[in-house]
C-alpha cells in the first residue's frame, strides 16, 4: 500500500494551518502537544503522504489517540472533514499493518462476532450480567487496573425483561402524524432498552406511529470509526435495505447520536459504489435525531400538551452535548429546547458542555487512561453546575458518565433525554 493511499491527501489540503481548532481538541487540551491536535494530525497525514514522515508506530498511536469527537469540525472555517479523514487513515493503517494476533482476535470477536449479531450481543449481555450479579467484576477489577475500575462502574445489565426488543409497531396516540422508523441498535437494547422504549412512547405521544426493524442489528458506526471500513460499508447496505423493507419513505429516528451522525453520512460512505450511491444519499436524508424530530414545530405543541410537573426528576438538570450530536450533526438548541419544555424542570448550563467526555465509542476500552483523563475536567464542570441530573442522548456518553460519576462517588443521576420526557408524560 502506498503512502498516498494511506491518508486522504485531497481532504488534507483543505487545512490552511490556521490553528483555530487547537483549543477545542480534547487531546491537545490534555497534552498541550500540537502533534495531538487536529491541525497537527492533518499535518502529519500530509507529511506522510508527501514522504516527509514515516507512518511508524508513533504516527499510528497519534491517530488512535484521537477521539474523533469532531469538535474541530464545528470551528473549522475551511470546512475540513476531519472525521472522514481520520476514518480513512485508520482504515488504511489497519490494512497496512494488521495488529497482533490477540488484538486481531479481539477485534474480530467484537466487530464481527458480537456487534453485528443479535445472538452475540445477547450472549455478551447475559455474560456481563452474570459477572455483575456474582460480583465477579468487583473481584477482578483490582487486578485490571484502570480497565478494572471501568468494568466495575459499568452500568448494570438489566434483567431480560428490560432487554426485550421493541414491538414491531407502536400505534400513535391522538390524531396521527404519520409513521417513523426507529433504530433498536446493537448495544442499546441490551444496556439501555428502557431508553428505546421511552423514545417509542414519547414519539407515539406526539402522534407518530412507530415501527421498529426487528431484523436489523448494527449501523456500522463503530466499525467506521475504528477503521473497519469494508465492514462498515457492508453494514450500511444492509441497514438501508432492511429499513426500506419496512418503509421506504418514513423518517428514520435515532436516539443514539453516534449512530445518527454515521447514518447521515451513508451517502459519503457509499459514494464510490455506483449501485448504492443514490439510495444511500436519499436514505441518509431521512435520518433525524430524536431531538430534531421532537423539536419540530408539529411535535412541540403535542408534547407541550402532554408534559406535566410531578415527574420527580432531581434538579437542577444539565445537558451534556454528545459530540456526534452537536459537532457531528450540528444539533445544539433542540435538546435544550425540549428540556425547557418540561414543567418544573430547572436547567443549568455546564461550561464546556460541547467538549468530549472521553467515551468516543469503544475508546474507553481501548485507551482507558486517556479516556478517563478526558473525562476529569468534565466531572469538574459538572460539579460546578451543582446539577443533580445529567442528560445526554448517546449510549457511549451515558455509560461513560455512569463510570465517571460512579468512580468519583457523586450522587448525580444520568438520564437519556427520552427518559426525561417519558417520565414527565402525563397519562392520556
Amino acid at each position, binding site marked *: 500500500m502506498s503512502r498516498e493511499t494511506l491518508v486522504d491527501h485531497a481532504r488534507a*489540503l*483543505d*487545512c*490552511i*494551518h*490556521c*490553528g*483555530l*481548532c*487547537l*483549543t477545542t481538541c480534547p487531546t*491537545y487540551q490534555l*497534552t*498541550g*502537544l*500540537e*502533534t495531538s*491536535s487536529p*491541525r*497537527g*494530525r492533518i*499535518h*502529519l497525514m500530509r*507529511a506522510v503522504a508527501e514522504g*516527509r*514522515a*514515516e507512518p*511508524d508506530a*508513533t*504516527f499510528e498511536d*497519534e491517530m488512535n489517540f484521537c477521539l474523533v469527537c469532531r469538535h474541530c*469540525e*464545528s*470551528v*473549522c*472555517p*475551511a*470546512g*475540513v472533514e476531519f472525521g472522514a479523514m481520520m476514518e480513512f487513515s485508520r482504515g488504511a493503517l489497519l490494512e497496512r499493518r494488521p495488529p497482533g494476533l490477540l488484538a486481531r482476535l479481539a477485534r474480530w470477536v467484537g466487530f464481527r462476532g458480537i456487534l453485528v449479531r443479535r445472538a452475540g450481543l445477547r450472549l455478551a449481555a447475559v455474560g456481563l450480567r452474570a459477572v455483575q450479579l456474582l460480583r465477579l467484576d468487583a473481584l477482578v477489577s483490582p487486578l485490571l487496573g484502570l480497565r478494572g475500575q471501568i468494568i466495575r462502574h459499568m452500568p448494570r445489565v438489566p434483567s431480560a425483561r428490560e432487554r426485550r426488543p421493541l414491538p414491531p409497531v407502536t400505534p400513535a396516540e391522538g390524531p396521527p402524524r404519520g409513521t417513523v422508523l426507529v433504530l433498536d441498535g446493537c448495544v442499546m437494547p441490551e444496556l439501555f432498552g428502557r431508553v428505546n422504549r421511552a423514545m417509542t412512547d414519547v414519539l407515539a405521544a406526539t402522534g407518530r406511529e412507530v415501527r421498529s426493524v426487528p431484523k436489523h442489528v448494527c449501523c456500522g458506526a463503530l466499525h467506521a470509526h475504528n477503521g473497519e471500513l469494508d465492514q462498515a460499508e457492508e453494514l450500511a447496505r444492509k441497514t438501508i435495505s432492511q429499513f426500506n423493507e419496512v418503509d421506504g419513505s418514513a423518517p428514520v429516528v435515532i436516539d443514539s447520536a453516534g449512530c445518527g451522525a454515521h447514518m447521515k453520512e451513508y451517502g459519503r460512505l457509499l459514494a464510490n459504489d455506483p449501485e448504492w450511491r443514490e439510495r444511500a444519499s436519499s436514505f441518509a436524508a431521512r435520518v433525524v435525531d430524536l431531538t430534531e424530530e421532537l423539536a419540530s414545530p408539529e411535535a412541540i405543541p403535542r408534547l407541550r400538551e402532554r408534559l406535566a410537573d410531578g415527574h420527580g426528576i432531581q434538579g437542577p438538570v444539565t445537558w451534556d452535548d454528545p459530540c456526534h450530536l452537536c459537532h457531528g450533526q450540528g444539533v445544539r438548541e433542540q435538546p435544550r429546547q425540549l428540556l425547557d419544555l418540561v414543567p418544573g424542570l430547572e436547567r443549568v448550563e455546564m461550561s464546556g458542555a460541547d467538549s468530549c467526555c472521553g467515551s468516543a465509542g469503544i475508546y474507553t476500552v481501548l485507551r482507558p487512561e486517556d479516556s478517563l483523563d478526558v473525562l476529569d475536567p468534565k466531572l469538574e464542570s459538572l460539579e460546578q453546575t451543582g446539577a443533580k441530573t445529567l442528560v445526554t442522548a448517546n449510549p457511549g456518553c451515558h455509560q461513560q458518565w455512569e463510570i465517571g460519576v460512579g468512580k468519583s462517588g457523586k450522587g448525580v443521576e444520568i438520564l437519556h433525554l427520552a427518559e426525561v420526557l417519558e417520565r414527565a408524560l402525563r397519562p392520556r
Partner: protein
Amino acid sequence: MGSGRKQLSRQHLAELERIVGKKGVRTDATARAAYESDAFMLQRANAEVIVLPRTTEEAAAAIKVVRDAGLVVVPRGAGTGLSGGARPVENGAIVGTARMRGVLEVNAEDRYARVQAGVVNVHLTAACADVGLFYGPDPSSQTACTIGGNVGNNSGGPHGFKYGSTNRHVLGLTMVDSEGEVIELGGPGATGDGGLDLLGPVIGSEGMLGLVTEVTVQLLPRPEKVETLLCLFESLDDCCDAVSEMIARRLEPSAIEILDRLTIEAVEASVLRAGYPDNAEAVMLVEVEGGDEEVDATSADVIEVAREFGAFDTRRTTDPVERKRLWAGRKGAFGAMGRIAPDLYVADVVAPRTRLREIVTAATVACRERDLKLANVFHAGDGNLHPNISYDRRDADEVRRVLEAGRIIMEACVEAGGSLTGEHGIGLEKQDEMCLVFSDDDLAAMDQLRGAFDPDAFWNPGKMLPVRGCREIHTRPLPTHAQPAEDAS
C-alpha cells in the same frame, strides 16, 4: 554555535523529563513533524526536541538544560503566527507554553490580570467577564492564540483601532533569560516611569529577547453599549474611501473592518456563516462602543459617511448573539480561505489611512498580472491591510509569483509611507524587506539591542533581522524617512 547537527544526549533528555515530566518532552520524529511550521507554511524545519513546561520554574530549569546541551530555543505559543516566527531553527528546541494555561489572578478593583503565557486570548476575557471587565486586543486567531504569543508579536486585532495593540495593555512580564534566570519587569499600578522601559522593546520582539512565562495585563471596563454596523458597497474602492473619510472626520468607533466579495463568499460557505449579504462587492463592518449617547451619535455619523460614499444598504444591531455571529465570520475569514486553495499567503502591510484605496489597487493589479487569486479582508480603521493570496505550495511557479506579488505590495506600501507589518511580525517572511524600511545603521542598532538581552543569540536566532546585509539584498531604504530631515529636503 558550531555547525553540524546537535543532538540531545540521554542525560540531557532524562534531566528534561525530570523537570517537566515525561509527557512534557518529545523527541520522536512524529511529534516533531507537527511543529515543522506555524501558520506561515512556506518554510519548514525540524526541532530537535519539544519541551512543554508547566510553570516559570520548570521553564527556567529546562532552559538551563537546553543551553547546556548546546541547543538554541524557539519559544512557541499555539503556533498560529503568520510570519514564521515560531518555526523551529537548526539545532533548536521548541519551548512551548501550551501547558501554561493558568489564570493566576484577576483583580477587579485594580483592573488587571496575571496569567501564564499559554493562556488563550479568549480565555482571559472569559475569566474576567463576571467582574465586568475584558482584555482589549482581539486578534482574529483569538480563540487559539496565546497571550504570550500576543506579547511576542505585539498583536492587534479589529478592536486595536480603539484600544491599540498588545503593548498598550501589558503592565508586567515574567521572563526567563538565556542563563535560565527568572526576571520580573513592571507590574500592576503606575510603573515603568521610574526606570528604563524594558517592557517596551520586549513586547513585539518575536521571541528573540527571552521566554515570556507570565504576563500582567490591564483590563478594561465593559462598555455600556455596543453596536455593530454593516455597510454594503457596490465597489471596494468606495468602501476604502469611506473609511478614509471616517478617519478624516475623526469618528471614533472601536473597529472598522472591510471584507471583499471573495472573502464574503468563503466565509458564507463555512461553519462561521455570518449572514453577510451576497450582493455586495465589499462589506464594511464597524463596531461602536461606549455610553448610550455617544454610540448613537457615532453610529449615525458612520452611516452618514457610508451613504455619502455609496453604501446601498446599512444594517445595525446591538443583539449580542447577532453581533457575535458577525464577528465570528470576520475572525474566521483567514481559515475560510482554505476553501479556495490549499495555501494562503497573508500579507500584513500598513498604509497611511489617507491612501487605503491606492494600496488595495496596487495589490489587485499585482495579483491580476500574475494570475493569482486575491481576497481582501482588513483592519481598515488602522490602515492595516491583509491582501490574502491563495495558492498551492506544490506549484513552485505559483509560489514564486505569490512571493513576487507580496513583495510588490510591501514596496507599494513603503513607498506610500507605510510599513511591512502591522501585527503579524517580520519572522522569516519579511526579513529581506526590512531593508526597504531601515538603513544598515538602524538594523545594526536593532541587532545591538538584541545582543544586550541575548549576547549569544540563544533565542529564536535567524528571525526578524536580515541574515544578509542590505547592500547584498540590493534595496535601498525609504528615502524620505530614513535620512535626517535636512538631507531629504
